[in-house]
């Protein structure tokens, strides 16, 4: 299998002259520093080059794929927060109860699960044997013809909601549950553990005991005082889990045939599509940094002790 970029560019029927032409076009005959200059110059203009595999501009390919992946990631993280935080709180409050032990085991399991395997198992159970949920993709092909989705934000759930396309929305949701759940397993595990250990620490503090002695209702103590103070590390964990979710999405997109960044990257890697690989890496790294930054901001907002 050739890994000569020019040969790959030309595609299935390379002739000597077409490969030469490709070399010229891709500036492959020029020295390394010239090519690096082209790269940086194009980058400054927002041009990530042209994909060797699809012959589309890389930025265009990535933009389309990004929305799909991002929606999945956000869905998974929201799921993680909705499930993880209450579970962690309950675990801490009812320490050493059955639910506490069960959730601790579940949390470790979530962190240890191979995402690609879990996805397959879910597909087996819910598609093959129960027939409840669809196998793959974002939207049913039939549905996309009868009720096409007006793509405004790239987030299908939002788009269908805005345009009142409720049957498509239900379909999109059904398609998102399994991959979202698989992706959420890891963050749920992380967040549950974090919230639980922080809550336990905080609940032992003196000011909690004082509040309880004053007769403040238990629920207000837990959610008003304790949770707020234990949320900060949980936010950090959330931000860090984004990184893992981003990468986990790669694998899960392969299994669920999700038209996202992961599938694009995997195809690029497998076909040695260097401009695409570089573009994806850049975008992912930038996204990662931006997300961490946002998490820092949120953390500073919640905890007034932290100064920016």
């Amino acid at each position, binding site marked *: 299998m050739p890994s000569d970029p020019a040969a790959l560019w030309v595609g299935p029927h390379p002739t000597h002259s077409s490969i030469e032409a490709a070399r010229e076009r891709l500036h492959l005959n020029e020295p390394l520093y010239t090519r690096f200059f082209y790269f940086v110059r194009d980058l400054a203009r927002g041009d990530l080059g042209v994909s060797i595999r699809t012959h589309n501009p890389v930025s265009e390919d990535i933009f389309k794929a990004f929305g799909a992946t991002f929606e999945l990631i956000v869905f998974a993280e929201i799921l993680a927060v909705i499930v993880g935080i209450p579970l962690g709180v309950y675990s801490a409050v009812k320490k050493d109860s059955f639910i506490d032990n069960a959730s601790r085991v579940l949390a470790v399991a979530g962190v240890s699960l191979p995402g690609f395997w879990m996805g397959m198992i879910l597909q087996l159970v819910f598609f093959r044997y129960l027939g409840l949920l669809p196998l793959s993709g974002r939207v049913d092909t039939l549905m996309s013809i009868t009720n096409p989705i007006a793509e405004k934000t790239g987030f299908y759930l939002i788009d269908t909601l805005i345009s009142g396309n409720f049957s498509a929305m239900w379909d999109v949701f059904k398609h998102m549950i399994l991959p979202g759940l698989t992706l959420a397993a890891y963050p749920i595990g992380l967040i549950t553990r974090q919230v639980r250990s922080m809550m336990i620490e905080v609940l032992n503090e003196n000011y909690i005991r004082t509040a309880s002695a004053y007769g403040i209702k238990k629920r207000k103590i837990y959610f008003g005082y304790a949770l707020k103070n234990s949320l900060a590390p949980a936010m950090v964990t959330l931000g860090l889990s984004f990184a*893992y979710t981003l990468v986990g999405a790669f*694998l899960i997109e392969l299994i669920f045939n999700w038209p996202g960044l992961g599938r694009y990257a995997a195809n690029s890697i497998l076909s040695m599509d260097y401009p695409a690989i570089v573009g994806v890496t850049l975008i992912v790294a930038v996204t990662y940094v931006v997300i961490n930054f946002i998490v820092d901001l949120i953390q500073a907002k919640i905890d007034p002790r932290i100064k920016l």
Partner: protein
Amino acid sequence: MKRRLSWFSVLVIFAVVIMALLAPIIAPYPQQALGEPNPAERLQPPSWKHIMGTDHMGRDIFSRIIYGSRTSLIVGISVTFLAALIGLPVGIVAGYYGGFVDTILMRVTDIFLAFPPLLLALLISSTMGKGFGNAIIALVISWWPWYARLARSQAVSTKNLAFVEAARSSGVSNVMIMLRHIFPSSIPPVVVQGTMDMGTAILEAAALSFLGLGIQPPAPDWGLMVSEGKNYFLNYWWIPTFPGLFIFLLVMSFNLLGDLVRESVDPRLRRRFF
């Protein structure tokens, strides 16, 4: 409950180690495990003859799983060990000397830490080419900065302690101090982290081989087996299910073990090691 969990995890790890060491003896079909195809018995469900069924090339899955334990354990141990081997000296030197050396070394590690963990390994793997050794190298390259950081913070907090100052004023050379005083105190957190990391390392290696970037067919690796089963699993559920189950159990056991180790070394309980 905690004791039951810890026994469970030790048991699993022990079982896997036995599997790895005694693979040729335990496996019912060792040649099949190593890749000899058996087209007559393709895609058979679990039966008395093949406890976990056969895969698309007729190979006994149970035997392949037993042999696959080797690669998983080797990866887990070597990646963690090598990453610590590289990370510890870097961290200790950076933490001890401080100043310019520290800044440079930390900037370098920051570059590596800026990447989401698996992504860096993916990148390095794809540029270096496929193969088991390359996968290990890729994982080690993406892991070592974490240990460097850990070692560095330990070094920083140890270097100002009284006994180090005493050694310095006695004229002990810097290198000697680092070796005999700083290094031993940096080991505990690295060991704790390493135990926890072994599970994750195995998981990441499985992900790499699932993507085809790690160990190559026909080698029996759990991640690879899951990937091979991907095309068949809807009708032949046993092909990816069993390997993945083993990955899950092994990783979970390492994680549980790591948690236990961490809880027993908790500084809040004031355990002293030196």
